[in-house]
C-alpha cells in the first residue's frame, strides 16, 4: 500500500509552525497598535489632568503655567514618542513590545506624580499589566515589573510625596506595592503561557486534520480522487 512520504509529513509540520507564527505575529501587531492608541490617549489624559487640577503656579500675585502642565506635555510626549515610533516602524518586534511595556509603566509613574501620589492612580499599574498580558509574553511583564519597581524605589527614596502622597512613608512601602504586582503577575504569567499553548494547539489541530486528508488521498484510488488536487498538495508540489 502506498504511504505518505516523509517530505509530505515534514511539510505538514512546517505549515503548522508557519500558521502558528502568522497568528502569533498578528496578535503581537494588533497589541502593539492597541498600545499605540493608548499612548496617545494617556498623553491627552495627562495634559487634561494637569490643566484641570493644577493649571497655574502662583508666586505672590504672579501667575505662571504650573510645572505639572509642562511635565505632562513634554515628559508625556517623551514617554509616548519612542514606543509610537517603534510601533510604526517595527510592529511585532521584540524590542517594540519591551519599549511599550517600559513606557506604559512610566505612564503609571507620571500619572501617579500628576495626581499627587493618589493611591487610586496606582491602579493604573495593575490595569496596565493586565493589558500588557495581551501580548501573551511573560518577559514583557518582567520588563514592566522591573521598571515600575525601580520607579517606586528611586522616587520613594528621593521624592516620596510624588509616589505615595506623603513625605515620610515607611521605607518598606515599595515592597508592599511590589508584592501586589508579583501577586498579579503570578496569574498573568500563567495566562500568557496558557494562551500560547492554546494557540499552538489550534495550529497543530489543523496539521492533524491535514495529515488525515493526506492519508485518505494516498489511500484512495485514482478514480475516486476529485479532478483537482487539494490546495495544500499543489502548494507542496511548488515548494
Amino acid at each position: 500500500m502506498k504511504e505518505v512520504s516523509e517530505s509530505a509529513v515534514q511539510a505538514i509540520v512546517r505549515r503548522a509552525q508557519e500558521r502558528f507564527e502568522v497568528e502569533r505575529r498578528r496578535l503581537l501587531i494588533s497589541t502593539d497598535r492597541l498600545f499605540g492608541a493608548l499612548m496617545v490617549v494617556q498623553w491627552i489624559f495627562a495634559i487634561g489632568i494637569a490643566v484641570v487640577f493644577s493649571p497655574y503656579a502662583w508666586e505672590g500675585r504672579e501667575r505662571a503655567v504650573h510645572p505639572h502642565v509642562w511635565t505632562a506635555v513634554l515628559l508625556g510626549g517623551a514617554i509616548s514618542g519612542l514606543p509610537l515610533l517603534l510601533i510604526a516602524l517595527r510592529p511585532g518586534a521584540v524590542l517594540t513590545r519591551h519599549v511599550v511595556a517600559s513606557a506604559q509603566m512610566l505612564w503609571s509613574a507620571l500619572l501617579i506624580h500628576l495626581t499627587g501620589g493618589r493611591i487610586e492612580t496606582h491602579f493604573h499599574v495593575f490595569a496596565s499589566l493586565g493589558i500588557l498580558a495581551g501580548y501573551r509574553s511573560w518577559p514583557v511583564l518582567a520588563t514592566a515589573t522591573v521598571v515600575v519597581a525601580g520607579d517606586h524605589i528611586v522616587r520613594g527614596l528621593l521624592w516620596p510625596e510624588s509616589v505615595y502622597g506623603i513625605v515620610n512613608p515607611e521605607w518598606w512601602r515599595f515592597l508592599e506595592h511590589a508584592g501586589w504586582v508579583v501577586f498579579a503577575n503570578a496569574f498573568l504569567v500563567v495566562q500568557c503561557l496558557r494562551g500560547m499553548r492554546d494557540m499552538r494547539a489550534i495550529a497543530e489541530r489543523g496539521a492533524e486534520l491535514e495529515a488525515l486528508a493526506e492519508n485518505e488521498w494516498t489511500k484512495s484510488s485514482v478514480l475516486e480522487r476529485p479532478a483537482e488536487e487539494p490546495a495544500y498538495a499543489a502548494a507542496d508540489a511548488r515548494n
Partner: protein
Amino acid sequence: MGAPTQNALGAAGSGFDTATLVVDGRESRWSAEQFRKMPLLDRIRVLAGGRVVFFRNGAEVPAREALRGL
C-alpha cells in the same frame, strides 16, 4: 439533544479517550493526553500513515471525529 459532555468527548478536550498505535508491527495504547503530548512530527507520521485507531468508551471512532475535539 444537549451539548456533548466532557466524558462523551473523551479526555483532554478530544473526541477520544484512548488511541492504539501500530509502529514497526508493535501495538501500543495511549491515553488522549499522552497522544496530545507526543511531538507533532511523530503524531503527523502516525496519522498520515494511518497507523492509529481512536477509541471512545471502548468503541472505535473515525479519526476525523476523534480529532475534532472541542
